[in-house]
């Protein structure tokens, strides 16, 4: 098999615990077709048509392949507006596996973020968190809070091999409490795993310590449980004392250290749409239940079809199975190890849902203000039809006060692996494309932004190459970012 021969301690195979039930045909494109498609998309992979994409690693969100059981669940939808039996099944499944008392379904994760931010945040408050996430931070800011990053420093270092790079730095959290006062901190937002740090996990020990510190000061803990099951897998692998514990038990314990969770079912839970807000506090729940009617839908469907709630309930049961999660993370690691063996700079250790190429090391000749990660994502598409996503200066947006770019330490391209969609051969093709690109990296030149939306600009921003594609000179011949600044205005 194509196990990496340089890795003497190669794992046992991560062979998928499923066979294929139904397939979806892919379209192969030529380089000329991709050049045209990329120009039309303003060199932003978000704006490509999926028909023009060969292997779509833009996101693992909602792109999963459902199981035959989940598809049967879709046929069991009870589409009653109120009191659908699918809701009660979902509610009891969440109570069983996550352990929270109350459940409000939402159409997806950001619906839950919207609810919790509106309920808990007052203007002038601070919300600490283990690194920002784009939509989460924006919800917090629009409700008048300031986000404060309290993740450990190792998280910002793409080469650190620390096993729990998603951990909260307790000293940073404590310093914030001393600086602004606990009464100004409605809650701490803890993500498991941490997406923007490269899908890095938080340890159980750290979660426990965070909640102890928070509760001492009367601060709530809200878990972003989107990929908590992948996090549980890393705890089982890496944290002393958990090797014999089931994934389901680890998940329950993780949730024990929080007052509630926002959840996008489109990740861990193997569905194409859906999310929920789970809570232990009756008063917060009651407010959420009244608010969800305005934004999402009545509290027994929350903007989801009955069938979608059924598919999500089944997805929870499948997601916590050891065989599933081993194959899931195993596939991501497989791609990661291939790239590491070829000397490609990636964030290590490899996270749970994606490989993150380190664009600063991949393209050291392109300054951050010329969008090295955006450029690398565009070039990768052009090279091979693989669609990735920028997670660097473009995603970080601008500082609301100064108007300048946020310049994150990590300038990354995310290759996100949808669950159960692609095979080992697809991973091999992806790795080979990246290696080809790496071999000709010095010929790649940066870009300027020619259209910039006000919020979450990475979704819809448009770019153009600083040097026209046909006549790209050697990288040393272009310098500076004046053009980019002018173009944005």
């Amino acid at each position, binding site marked *: 098999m194509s196990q990496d021969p340089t890795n003497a301690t190669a794992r046992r195979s991560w062979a998928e615990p499923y066979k294929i039930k*139904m397939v*979806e045909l892919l379209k192969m494109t030529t380089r000329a077709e991709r050049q045209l498609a990329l120009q039309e*998309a303003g060199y932003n*992979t*978000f*704006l*490509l*048509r*999926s*028909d*023009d*994409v060969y292997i*779509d690693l*833009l*996101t693992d*969100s*909602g*792109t999963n392949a459902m199981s035959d059981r989940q598809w049967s669940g*879709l046929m069991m*939808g*009870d*589409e*009653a*507006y*109120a*009191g*659908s*039996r699918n809701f*009660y099944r979902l509610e009891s499944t969440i109570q069983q596996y996550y352990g929270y008392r109350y459940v409000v379904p939402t*159409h*997806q994760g*950001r*619906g839950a973020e*919207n609810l919790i931010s509106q309920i808990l945040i007052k203007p002038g408050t601070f919300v600490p968190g283990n690194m920002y996430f784009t*939509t989460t931070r*924006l*919800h917090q800011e*629009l409700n008048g809070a300031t986000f404060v990053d309290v993740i450990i420093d190792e998280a910002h270092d793409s080469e650190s091999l620390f096993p729990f790079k998603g951990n909260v730095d307790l000293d940073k959290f404590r310093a914030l409490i001393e600086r602004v006062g606990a009464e100004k901190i409605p809650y701490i937002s803890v993500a498991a795993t941490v997406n923007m740090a490269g899908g890095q996990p938080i340890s159980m020990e750290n979660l426990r310590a965070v909640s102890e510190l928070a509760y001492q000061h009367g601060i709530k803990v809200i878990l972003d449980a989107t990929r908590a099951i992948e996090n549980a897998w890393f705890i089982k692998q890496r944290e002393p004392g958990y090797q014999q514990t089931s994934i389901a038990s680890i998940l329950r314990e993780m949730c024990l250290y929080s007052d509630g969770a926002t959840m996008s079912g489109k990740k861990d839970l193997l569905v*194409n*749409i859906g999310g929920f807000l789970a809570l232990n506090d009756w008063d917060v729940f009651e407010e959420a*239940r*009244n608010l969800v*009617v*305005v*934004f*999402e*839908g*009545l*509290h027994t*469907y929350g*903007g989801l*079809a*009955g*069938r*979608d709630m059924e598919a999500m309930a089944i997805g929870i049961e499948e997601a916590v199975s050891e065989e599933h999660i081993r194959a899931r993370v195993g596939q991501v690691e497989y791609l990661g190890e291939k790239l590491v063996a070829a000397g490609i700079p990636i964030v290590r250790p490899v996270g749970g849902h994606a490989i993150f190429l380190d664009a600063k090391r991949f393209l050291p000749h392109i300054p951050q203000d010329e969008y090295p990660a955006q450029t690398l994502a565009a070039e990768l598409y052009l090279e091979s039809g693989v669609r990735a996503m920028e997670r660097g200066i473009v995603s970080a947006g601008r500082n609301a006060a100064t108007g300048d770019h946020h310049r994150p330490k990590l300038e990354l391209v995310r290759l996100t692996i949808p669950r159960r969609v692609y095979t080992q051969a697809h991973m091999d093709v992806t790795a080979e494309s990246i290696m080809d690109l790496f071999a000709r990296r010095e010929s790649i030149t940066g870009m300027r932004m020619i259209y910039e*939306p006000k*919020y*979450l600009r990475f*979704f*819809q921003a448009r770019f153009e190459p600083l040097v026209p594609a046909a006549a790209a000179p050697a990288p040393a011949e272009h310098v500076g970012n004046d053009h980019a600044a002018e173009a944005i205005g």
Partner: protein
Amino acid sequence: MMFNTIIEPFRIKSVEAIRFTTREEREAALLAAGNNVFSLHAEDVVIDLLTDSGTGAMSAAQWAAIMQGDESYAGSRSFFRFQRVVQELTGFKHIIPTHQGRAAERIIFHSMLQSGDLVLNNTHFDTTRANIEVEGAEARDLVIAEGRIPSFDHPFKGNVDLEALERTLESEGDRVRLVMATVTNNSGGGQPVSLENLRGIRDIAHRHGKLFFLDACRFAENAWFIKMREPGQSHRSPKEIAQEMFSLADGCTMSAKKDGLANIGGFLALNDDAMAEKCRTLLILTEGFPTYGGLAGYDLEAIAQGLEEVVQEDYLRYRIRSIEYLAEKLRNAGVPIVWPSGGHAVYIDAREMLPHIAPLQYPGVALTNALYLEAGIRACEIGTVMFGLHPDGTETAAPMDLVRLAIPRRLYTQSHIDYVAEAILAVYAQRDAIAPLRITSAPTVLRHFTAQFEAMAPESAMT
């Protein structure tokens, strides 16, 4: 020859078993639900006429389309199919998918309205009104006087009172941000708006420099009424009529859970570039990326297919006729209903049927509960509980106290409808025994969904 029976233009492909309950079981279930049918478990309901929203049966072609969903986060081909179909139907430039209609409303109102603004409409529906009031703006209803009298026969009881519209725009024009028409007019009994009236609204709104939007949830049913009732329209296809309706407006909000024949989904469509960009920004924050808007790819497919099926003449003839069929049965037996019957529901006039119950003793909920206990039928109050509580905390009687029997699309057969009619007649025969209600707990916004009730002693009823 013309047949009297309207055969469904489909046969059944897949069924869902119904559970029958005893009266004792229903009594226990209703008590546990705080005497509010919104809190019933759907499994305890025999015939569910709570709403026609998202409750319809999809076609085989829609289920097939679901299997073809492209779940790509960005640029999904399912989106491009959806966009093409909606654009062809509505003619609007910007098509923005949302997870359902209320999200489209929230996005357009939040992008457009400021505190103190005024929105005019024939009759605002509950979530529409709530989304306007959340912005601190006022929602004012300008339906024609005939539209407020349940028994008054008029072909287009959903029409806007054009004189009142003109007057309001003259006296308070600086506050008015948007003029709307809900087609069909749900709160007024599912009553249609004529093309002539839509033209009139458009002319007046534009003369005053105001945008005109449709709340298009039931556009196809409205188009069918135009074809049947408006002079000079009988030769046109429902789709042509619908296209003209949309062409008169600057944009629309749509819940695809009604005339999209889908179980979930909606959209916002409009022509203005700057406003569309504002709306998309908000969409990304609360719904999803503009090429999925909070829907799975498979939902976009189902809606696209549904919008093509809903404008077919055979479907609309069956749809409207099956509502009429129930309405005629009730009317012939003397039950007071909104007449003529609307496009998606039969509305019983609870205030007239239960004169011994004052509006603030909630005759609509009392009748709804009686129907559930009698036969396991779930209906919906559209009256003082839904509309009687004002943002300042005061409570007054709504203009009408109706009980809506909303008929889900393609879901129930004629024998189900016969059963419903029999049950209503049985309740009608014992109507004097129905007790008034009081509210024991309720939230301040959209209280009808979660309020709890208890029956009052008979002597406290109005005599």
